[in-house]
């Protein structure tokens, strides 16, 4: 099997599951309990937090555990809206965000907030000039994704952060669900980014794990009220097995990152070089430092994305239409639409997303299958 759908989810690694199981079996006390047994769980929780903070070069008290990327995005966006509603009701985001951001924004719009969606260029990238023009005195939040999940564009986070230094009251949120272990941590964690959301299962941790970074001194309202966990910001008994497993997964993924990124770039280049020779192929992703190493989006004109996915699936090669989360409900890609790609091309797009388990040999097999399938498609259209 060749798994080229790592942006949808990744395999939980055996050593990560080992931690999950051991913690579930042995350290199952409630971190909030007063007794020793609970205390031990509390220590493990805090040590996990510290390990993640250290690996990302931030403070321990800036890490808040969540159930995943969707929760992180929902929390920061609605939490900001709640906490800062006295100061304004205008929010800026991009037109290529993941549904977790986009639909949170839409819900706020129904509640009376105004949302500005920034346009993107033909590479899916916003311009900082547009951002600047969109800022108003009542703007409370700017939310920009680090890496586009459909075509892999790296958004100009650093430049946006530079601009936002002139607007210190605005919260700056970055959806970095596709951005861990891809060599862009420096770009995400700078001194003007206030919040960053991550999802565990995108880097070999179990489902239902995730965390946000929340800069010291920045406040958002909690969405989960209850027993006061996570400094009263996110109540609910901590998913300690998942959290410890995620802390380990981050360590492993960052250890592997330098070589993994190199391999991913090679694989991506090999595939690009090969498929770009075909007339009907349109490639949307680049392989330079303006794009993440692991995502490659392309279309075969005249063939529906869904058809391509199922054709590859027969060869045990798993790729996806543009975003797994919404690919069952929509045929079109939000990002490609925003890039003004014609509808008939956009519906033919598929996404390859690589991970640290993929190899160059797999890429070679992929292109052989691609040749075969292309011929068949060619005959049909």
């Amino acid at each position, binding site marked *: 099997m060749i798994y080229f759908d790592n942006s949808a989810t990744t395999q939980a690694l055996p050593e990560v599951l080992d*931690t999950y199981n051991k913690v579930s079996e042995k350290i199952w006390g409630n971190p909030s309990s007063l007794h*020793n047994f609970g*205390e*031990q769980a509390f*220590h*493990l929780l805090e*040590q996990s937090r510290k*390990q993640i903070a250290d690996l990302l070069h931030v403070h321990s008290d800036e890490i808040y555990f969540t159930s995943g990327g969707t929760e992180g995005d929902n929390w920061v966006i609605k939490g900001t809206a709640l906490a800062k509603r006295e100061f304004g009701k205008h929010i800026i985001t991009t037109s290529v965000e993941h549904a977790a951001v986009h639909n949170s924004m839409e819900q706020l719009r129904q509640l009376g907030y105004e949302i500005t969606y920034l346009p993107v260029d033909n590479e899916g990238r916003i311009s900082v000039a547009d951002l600047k023009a969109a800022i108003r005195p009542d703007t409370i939040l700017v939310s920009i994704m680090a890496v586009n999940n459909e075509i892999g564009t790296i958004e100009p986070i650093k430049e946006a952060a530079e601009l936002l230094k002139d607007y210190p009251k605005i919260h700056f949120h970055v959806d970095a669900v596709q951005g861990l272990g891809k060599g862009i941590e420096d770009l995400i964690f700078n001194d003007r980014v206030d919040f960053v959301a991550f999802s565990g299962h995108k880097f070999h941790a179990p489902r239902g794990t995730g965390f946000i970074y929340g800069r010291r001194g920045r406040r958002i309202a909690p969405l989960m009220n209850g027993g006061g966990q996570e400094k009263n910001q996110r109540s609910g008994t901590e998913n300690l097995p998942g959290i*410890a497993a995620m802390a380990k997964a981050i360590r492993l993924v960052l250890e592997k990152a330098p070589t993994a990124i190199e391999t991913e770039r090679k694989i991506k280049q090999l595939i690009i070089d090969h498929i770009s020779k075909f007339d009907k192929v349109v490639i949307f992703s680049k392989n330079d430092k303006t794009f993440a190493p692991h995502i490659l989006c392309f279309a075969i004109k005249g063939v529906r994305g869904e058809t391509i996915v199922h054709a590859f699936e027969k060869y045990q090669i798993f790729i996806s239409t543009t975003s797994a989360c919404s690919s069952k409900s929509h045929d079109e890609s939000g990002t490609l639409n925003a890039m003004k790609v014609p509808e008939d091309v956009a519906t033919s797009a598929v996404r390859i997303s690589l991970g640290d388990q993929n190899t160059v040999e797999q890429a070679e097999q992929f292109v052989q299958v691609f040749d075969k399938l292309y011929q068949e498609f060619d005959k049909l259209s």
Partner: protein
Amino acid sequence: MHYTEIMVRYGELSTKGKNRKDFIKQLGRNVRAVLHRFEKVEVKAQRDRLHVALNGEDDDQVIAALQGVFGIENLYPTIRIEKDLETIKRVVLQMAQAQFTPGATFKINTRRQDKHFAYDTNQLNNLLGAYVLENVDGIKVDVKHPDIAIRVEIRMNGAFISAETIHGAGGLPVGTGGRATMMLSGGIDSPVATYLAMKRGVKIDMIHFYSPPYTSEQALNKAKQLTSVLAKYSGNIQFIQVPFTEVQETIKEKVPEGYLMTIQRRMMLRIAAEITKQRHCSGVFTGEALGQVASQTLESMLAINDVTTMPVLRPLVSMDKEDIIKISKQIKTFDLSILPFEDCCTIFTPPSPKTRPDLEKSRKFENYIDVAGLMKRAIDGIKITDIKAGEEFLNQDQDVFAELL
């Protein structure tokens, strides 16, 4: 650039007349104790300074360890090289380049112990200065207030070059100021008071009162953990835990509410003073600061201090809380101190303790309890632990966790 040795300049102990020799010897011992884990390091304590030869050990780590030792004014990381002019020139230039920031001024400061060396002090100053001037763009000479002072020493056994000056902890070597006990609660103040006592050369034994089941095992471990942090500045510390439950329960039962706190403190000090005497220590340190809480008014101190003639020393007495917190962050005890475990000072506190207790009444109410018997049983129950720097008490699962994570 890796340093080969570290030259240590003594602090005020250089001025201590006849005691000087003892002071230097003690500092040598303390430095050796701190550097124990660096096997190859050699320490030589001489009259005017102390030499630490690294012999390949990591310079940053050794410097970090030395920075915690009291009695050291400055550290000069040094490179020892052959007494050969070309080599000296090269290393001096490297150091100048490493320290240079645009617009910086420098001077060469040569000392020549080896009078047979081919160049004298002035010649060396000129030669080396000229060489740096030529090869570092934009550097200027300033012999009065240079930004970079490059020290060159020509000794019998080699040339020693240094440019960086690192501040030491100052103070006096621990052990030269006698031995005393410290009443350590676990709050923010007492660790800071301990640190300041150590800084004046005092060797400290910790006394900690604990009242199970009113106080948790965690509170005791927290006090031990604080001690292990403080041991970094002094070497091993004897930690004396005193069971205080019976005393507190008896006081609660027999003494009027307004005087609960005063009598408790009197008993604590009595016990601490007795332990101090038995251990041949010469004073009791506390973390009290004037006016912070009910027990820390002058009237309270009078009523409490009444129980002993042993000197009770309060290094924080006139300090503001803010300044205390600043030091506690600097010595890395703050984060531990604020862990929310109840200690025996916070249990059984009456809603409105007397801020101006009356001395006569305090004495009278104390007669309601069996002072001698309670003291004896508490002191018979003490347990002493030898605590090493960096020992882990609060989170003993760390190894297990390390494997999991």
